[in-house]
């Protein structure tokens, strides 16, 4: 199937700056974010339960996405469904699969899978002890269910060999599962009914033209012949936002029952996922030759840098970030009508007593780091060593989410202030 067939079903909501594929919200994240988000859930729950929760979240979100696409494209047969699924996998930068399975069982072999490849790229010298591709396992299960018109959640897939564990390839086994209760929908409708998208902030006259230019690029960002999106020195992916939110909040809920004293630690690590992901993604894009060609080489001017960060975040579908306040080197207030985290929380988890946008909190700090601590005049190289140097003197920023729609506030807002260096990340 021509990828353009699916690209034509990508959408964008300008007021909320969310991306969609067939009305299912999606977002572009880099491998740094993906690895750290998944790792945090596994650290909290253990590898087996963590993988199970993440696989379940992926299965649900990809089932909805592919079912929506199949309905729009009027795809009905088993073979056509498999073809559609492989195109979706490629489009999202997740790699390639060969599926030899039905609802009664079988084997799936993966190549160039995003998470396994990301691990080998980023942590080459760290031995991995558990499979990395729970997202792909969930994707495969959803594909088998749809292709064979089986009941939702009636197929389970788990990874039994993984290229991130020094294996030559990634292998999954499919087996029947008992369907569980279904969660409510998470589509464009939930977004528009949850949050009012009309927010403007500082530097909009700078942000708007950059966003328009970047949208032309991101709307056509698709996997290559291997099913990988390698761009800006990063391995990018487009995943349903429900995957991240469901895996994260299911993990937090489980931890609140088994080890509630560790909840602040998990919050801090989910925040770090946002921090490492946004720092690398936004930084690598701004340091790229593509950016030079499309926007112009960064000058290092703080206002220009923060406007660029906000424009990129919107283009990638992270939400309609706005700059409410900005004092270079000292303070940043980022405000958005809603994050995808908060949208999910309101619709699935109910009313919170505290703000719930952990990756957004970390992202706000990352923006401040890019503005205040990177010397753009000298063409920075966004790699592990640069990132590690951010912490040589401890953490120099304090972030607080002061408003969150999950708590009933009118928008989601994070305030970042400079502080004396501290070893505390809580």
């Amino acid at each position, binding site marked *: 199937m021509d990828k353009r067939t699916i690209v034509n079903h990508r959408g964008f909501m300008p007021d909320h700056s969310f991306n969609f594929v067939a009305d299912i919200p999606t977002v572009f994240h880099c491998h740094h974010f993906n690895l750290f988000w998944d790792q945090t859930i596994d650290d909290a729950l253990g590898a087996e339960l963590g993988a199970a929760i993440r696989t379940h979240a992926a299965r649900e979100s990809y089932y909805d996405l592919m079912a929506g696409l199949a309905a729009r494209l009027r795809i009905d047969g088993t073979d056509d469904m498999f073809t559609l699924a492989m195109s979706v996998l490629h489009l999202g930068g997740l790699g390639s699969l060969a599926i030899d399975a039905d609802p009664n069982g079988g084997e799936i072999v993966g190549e160039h899978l995003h998470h396994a490849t990301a691990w080998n790229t980023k942590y080459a010298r760290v031995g991995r002890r558990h499979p990395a591709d729970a997202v792909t396992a969930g994707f495969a299960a959803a594909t088998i269910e749809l292709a064979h018109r089986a009941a939702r959640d009636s197929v389970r897939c788990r990874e039994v060999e993984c290229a991130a564990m020094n294996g030559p390839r990634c292998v999954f086994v499919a087996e029947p599962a008992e369907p569980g209760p279904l969660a409510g929908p998470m589509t464009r409708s939930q977004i528009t009914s949850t949050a009012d998208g009309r927010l403007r902030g500082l530097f909009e006259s700078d942000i708007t033209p950059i966003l328009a230019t970047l949208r032309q690029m991101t709307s056509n960002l698709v996997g290559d012949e291997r099913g990988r999106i390698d761009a800006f020195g990063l391995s990018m992916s487009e995943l349903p936002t429900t995957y991240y939110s469901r895996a994260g909040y299911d993990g937090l809920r489980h931890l609140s029952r088994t080890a509630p004293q560790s909840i602040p*630690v998990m919050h801090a*690590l989910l925040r770090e996922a946002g921090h490492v992901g946004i720092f690398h993604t936004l930084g690598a894009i701004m340091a790229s030759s593509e950016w030079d060609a499309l926007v112009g080489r960064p000058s290092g001017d703080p206002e220009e840098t923060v406007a660029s960060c906000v424009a990129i975040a919107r283009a990638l579908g992270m939400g309609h970030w706005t700059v409410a306040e900005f004092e270079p080197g000292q303070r940043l207030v980022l405000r958005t009508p809603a994050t995808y985290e908060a949208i999910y929380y309101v619709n699935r988890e109910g009313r919170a007593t505290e703000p719930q946008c952990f990756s957004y909190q970390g992202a706000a700090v990352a923006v401040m780091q890019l503005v205040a601590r990177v010397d753009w005049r000298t*063409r920075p190289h966004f790699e592990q060593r640069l990132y*590690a*140097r951010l912490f040589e003197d401890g953490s120099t920023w304090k972030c607080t989410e002061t408003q969150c729609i999950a708590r009933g506030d009118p928008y989601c807002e994070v305030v970042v202030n400079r502080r004396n260096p501290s070893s505390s*990340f809580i």
Partner: protein
Amino acid sequence: MRTLDVVRMAKMAPALQNLVLFSMPDGRLVEHWPPSVGDADSLATVVGDLLNVADRATRWGFQTSPKMIAVESEAGPLIVCPISEDLGAGFFFNATTNLGLARIQIRDMMLQLEPLRNESKPPAAVPLNSPPSGPPSVARPDSTRPLLSRPDSTRPTATRSESIRSESSRPELSRPTAGRSRGVMLLDTLQRHAPDPHICLLRLSLRTGIALEKLDSPEQLTPEQVDAIATAVRDIIGRDDLGA
């Protein structure tokens, strides 16, 4: 922090072409000689990588740390040595230098580095956001400066005659020593080898359920807590052998 007189050090070794000092385990540049070395940051990184890999190999094979790594090439020998837990050095000698002579000259230079063996932290790094007159701390190399790490048509290129030897030393870190509890040693191992060391204690706390405050005093942990930490450290760094 003691100031390093690398010029004086280099004069002790007439055959020395380049010297790079780097922090461990991250391979961050601390000092280099001569000043005209093009991409000293990258050089420190790759030499630090060499020491890290050799450290892993000798710990697996011998349960000890390397004392010295020697790489012989047609361009001359490269010797890499750990100076302390947190500092390493790479010495590049000219093509006329044999390994024996290089080791002698290194021994003389190491006397200059002796005080650093007792220091726990390397010299302070250049600020991430350095002023225009300072060295670019996060820059790619300036294209007008010669790059030592890239092939140069005027220099002999490496051939298959390169050999790598590492020599083991008495164990310093991998086994409990008098005064160092197993908990202390495990946390030390974690912080030396974990990916993303700035949050490795958070990960350890999340995995074990042990509060961060308790991890600040590892010598006071219970045996059960230490066992839980050992399991978590093995998983985080991906190794069974912790030497503890």
